[in-house]
């Protein structure tokens, strides 16, 4: 476990907060901090891929607010949660002086970990785990937005975002008719600067933003230890395929200016006109250097070779814009007619210039030893356009009833011009595709004396598919009924999505029921149960023999949850438990339990104890099974 990174992150974030807290004259402040222990049996990789809560210190919650007449800020609020040995955490600062400025600063961090026994693992049957694609990375995002003179006719703002993703991983590389496991180290940064203004001229208001995004990424690769033989141990043309050295350095830079604007006009007391426009233009520059040595086969060259040096220079452009206008007309109070039109356009084009030097090649008969240089200039273009026309009636104020009904028509036009290198079999991947989708969408609700009934039906019908999995007809139905009184509430939900296509039959059904009972104000009991069924059937052609088979995917899941909250000063008890059973293509069971007891032994101090348990069991194999128990003690202060 990457405890060093965790502790460092914890210190960097918590210490400034504590410093601020100590020097500021906060009017309310709450802090909960403590330590959590992990007891794990079974697959650590699967546990970390799913949950990844670890041993260590945790800032569970921090809140500080102040309202004052200070010249710097007349109010501020600082919140933080789950910083430290957690898979994700955040802090947020909001400070303002009425009529002068509004400042928002946010920081989010999340671990990205994946090491699954069965994912991308051709060697699972040999007991080699986890799979060849793993990563142990972290994502951090820092955001700052400052608005000047908010609420005035013209309020300019500036903003900045810094995002970083980094950490090691493993992957697989196909070369010379074999696959080799590589280790990689990724370091991506993405920065965005934006500036603009909110404006409010009475009947007309809106926002304009101009931004610039810059992405810079670098990933280096090398051969993983003990992986010289590759996945394929069978000789090819009498020769063992092995790799003795490998290195790759891949760098990518993306520059993307964008413009984003919307305007709302109250042209009449009953008519609003809304317009919006967004335009982004991105350019990618990529450089990649790769070299490897070993013993390989190339069928395109018809030769063996013992090394490869490759250089790639690439460039890609993407222009995207979207414009929309709509009118909201109030026919009478609570009844509105809305109509709109939207056009979207996306154009991606790219080219790569690849120079490959195959070292020490010989023909399959052993003759003509030489180095061979291959130069490829490859290009790719995709263009997509979509027009959508929509109209809707929304009647919200018909006593206990409300109704919304709408119709939209969307025309999609996609042109794909693939590179010739991609074409293996006639028919190709490219072409021009047109698809029209008509959608009817209606929602009705009834609510009176605690009883609420809501139903939604959406029907989509399309003419031609773009992808094989596109539907011809799709129906989505959702019904929910609930009844709430001061002491209890009960509800039930049913949903169904049904899709039909030329080679497609897909049905999803979900049902759930929930009940909450509050016999006394200090005690709340709750329980819920759910069931969902997924049944998907898509025909496909097996690539090795062209036989058509059905890709059948099914899930039958059942969930049960229950819990209680008990509050009697100075104690608060929260208990929750649940079980999720899944049968079908991927059977598994998940059991989760959470308990938290808070004892506020003083008005300004307390202690909290937490106990959590997660059990995961797979039905087809036991590689990923785990039992985890976590328990922690936290101190709570309200200085």
């Amino acid at each position, binding site marked *: 476990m990457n405890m060093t990174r965790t502790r460092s992150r914890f210190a960097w974030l918590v210490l400034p907060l504590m410093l601020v807290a100590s020097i500021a004259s906060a009017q*309310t402040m709450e802090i909960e901090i403590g330590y959590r222990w992990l007891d794990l049996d079974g697959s650590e990789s699967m546990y970390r891929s799913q949950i990844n809560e670890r041993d260590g210190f945790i800032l569970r919650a921090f809140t500080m607010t102040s*309202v004052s007449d200070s010249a710097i800020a007349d109010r501020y609020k600082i919140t933080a949660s789950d910083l430290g040995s957690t898979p994700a955490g955040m802090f947020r600062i909001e400070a303002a002086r009425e009529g002068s400025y509004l400042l928002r600063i946010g920081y989010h961090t999340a671990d990205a970990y994946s090491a699954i026994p069965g994912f991308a693992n051709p060697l699972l049957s040999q007991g080699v785990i986890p799979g060849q694609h793993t990563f142990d990375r972290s994502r951090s995002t820092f955001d700052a937005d400052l608005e000047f003179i908010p609420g005035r006719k013209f309020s300019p703002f500036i903003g900045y975002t810094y995002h970083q993703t980094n950490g090691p991983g493993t992957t697989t590389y196909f070369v010379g008719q074999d696959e080799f496991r590589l280790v990689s180290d990724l370091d991506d940064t993405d920065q965005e600067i934006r500036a603009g203004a909110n404006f409010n001229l009475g009947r007309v208001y809106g926002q304009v933003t101009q931004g610039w995004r810059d992405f810079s990424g670098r990933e280096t690769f090398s051969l993983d230890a003990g992986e010289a033989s590759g996945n394929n141990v069978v000789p090819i043309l009498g020769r063992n395929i092995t790799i003795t050295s490998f290195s790759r350095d891949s760098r990518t830079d993306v520059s993307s200016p964008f413009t984003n604007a919307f305007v709302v006009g109250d042209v009449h007391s009953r008519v609003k006109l809304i317009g919006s426009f967004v335009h982004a233009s991105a350019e990618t520059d990529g450089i990649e250097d790769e070299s490897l040595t070993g013993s390989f086969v190339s069928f395109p060259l018809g030769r063996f070779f013992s090394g490869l040096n490759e250089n790639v220079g690439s460039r890609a452009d993407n222009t995207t814009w979207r414009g929309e206008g709509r009118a909201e007309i109030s026919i009478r109070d609570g009844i509105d007619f*809305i109509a709109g039109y939207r056009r979207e356009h996306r154009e991606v084009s790219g080219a790569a210039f690849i120079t490959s030097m195959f070292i020490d090649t010989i023909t399959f008969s052993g003759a003509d030893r030489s180095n061979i240089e291959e130069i490829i200039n490859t290009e790719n273009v995709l263009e997509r356009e979509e027009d959508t026309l929509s109209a809707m009636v929304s009647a919200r104020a018909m006593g206990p009833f409300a109704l919304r009904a709408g119709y939209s028509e969307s025309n999609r036009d996609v042109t794909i011009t693939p590179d010739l290198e*991609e074409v293996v079999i006639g028919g190709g991947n490219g072409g021009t595709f047109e698809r029209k989708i008509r959608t009817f969408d209606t929602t009705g609700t009834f609510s009176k004396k605690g009883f609420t009934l809501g139903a939604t039906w959406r029907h989509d019908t399309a003419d031609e598919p773009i992808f094989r999995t596109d539907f011809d007809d799709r129906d989505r139905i959702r019904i929910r009924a609930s009844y709430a009184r001061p002491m209890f509430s009960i509800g039930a*939900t049913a949903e169904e999505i049904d899709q039909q296509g030329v080679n497609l039959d897909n049905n999803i059904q979900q049902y759930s029921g929930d009940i909450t009972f509050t016999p006394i104000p200090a005690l709340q009991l709750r329980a819920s149960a759910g069931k969902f069924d997924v049944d998907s059937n898509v025909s496909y052609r097996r690539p090795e023999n062209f036989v058509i088979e059905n890709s059948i*995917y099914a899930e039958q899941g059942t969930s049960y949850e229950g819990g209680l909250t008990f509050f009697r000063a100075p104690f608060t008890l929260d208990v929750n438990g649940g079980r999720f059973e899944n049968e079908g293509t991927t059977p598994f069971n998940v059991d989760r339990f959470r308990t938290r007891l808070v004892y506020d032994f003083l008005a300004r101090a307390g202690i909290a104890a937490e106990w959590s348990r997660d059990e995961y069991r797979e039905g087809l194999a036991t590689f990923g099974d785990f039992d985890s128990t976590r328990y922690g003690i936290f101190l709570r202060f309200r200085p």
Partner: protein
Amino acid sequence: MTERDKSMTPKATGRLLLLLVVVLFSGATVVAQEPPATQPPAQETPAEPPATQEEATAEQPAMSCGDCHDQARDFLHNPHARGNVENGVVSNGACETCHGDGTAHMEGGGDKAQITVPRGREGADGTCLMCHDTTTHKKSPRSGVHANSSAVNCLSCHSIHKSENRPALLAKETEALCATCHSTQVAAFRGKPFAHRLGRGGMSCVSCHEPHGRAGRENIRTVASGEIACASCHREKHGPFVFEHGAVSAGDCSSCHEPHGSTNAHQLKRATVAQLCLECHSPTQMATAGSQPPSFHNISNPRFQNCTTCHVAVHGSNRSPQLLK
């Protein structure tokens, strides 16, 4: 990273003891300095008003809302108190913005008939939307999925007096609030093994969904450059790439991924990768994009059962049309 399938027992007995000492020492220190706990539960109902107007006048003239209503005194940090705070005390103006002039109510000894209490759709229309008519290109209180109605209105989700310091004065934590109606989606998050971590690190339903948004696609948040919310964290997937996967270019992330929880480690719509890929990449009589078979691989061989073992750059590549690197 190697698999270490073994039991991990708590390795910090010393740290536990140290922490307990700190806890006990802290508790003892605070006990020595502070009076016993006297924290009453938050009160929504008003304190008992004086029985008669005469009694009120004689004993304690009701000059401010906070004399009877605890929530008025606790309103200092509520955003609705802005502009109505004098010397650290919330003035009646903060209450009267929504409840109207309270003079008759006070003079009536707390007569409930003499004060406005916004409730339901009418209350939201007549009070909340007077200031919070947030019509934008994404939002609409008239036509949005949660458009103000008798079934769902502002007060269904926002609690003006009892939000307990939650953002946007929410009545409950976001996940619990959304689960009130969207129980099947929340069950998928809680139950399925691979899902975004709701409730951790500030991520919640509203990280991706716009609760005030219009129906359909406008219900999904977008980043400033116009891309859907996925791009706010998964920035390396932005591209553009020389060779973008058509499912990304002509569709979107949800062409392959299930954001609400999946049985697949990478939140794919199918448990196995080959199944997902071959449903599109399979030749039939229809002319559809990407329908050629990727190769002649024998998918009964474990080497070829996971397409992404070799086609690693599945979102896009600047080098390989076959997305091999």
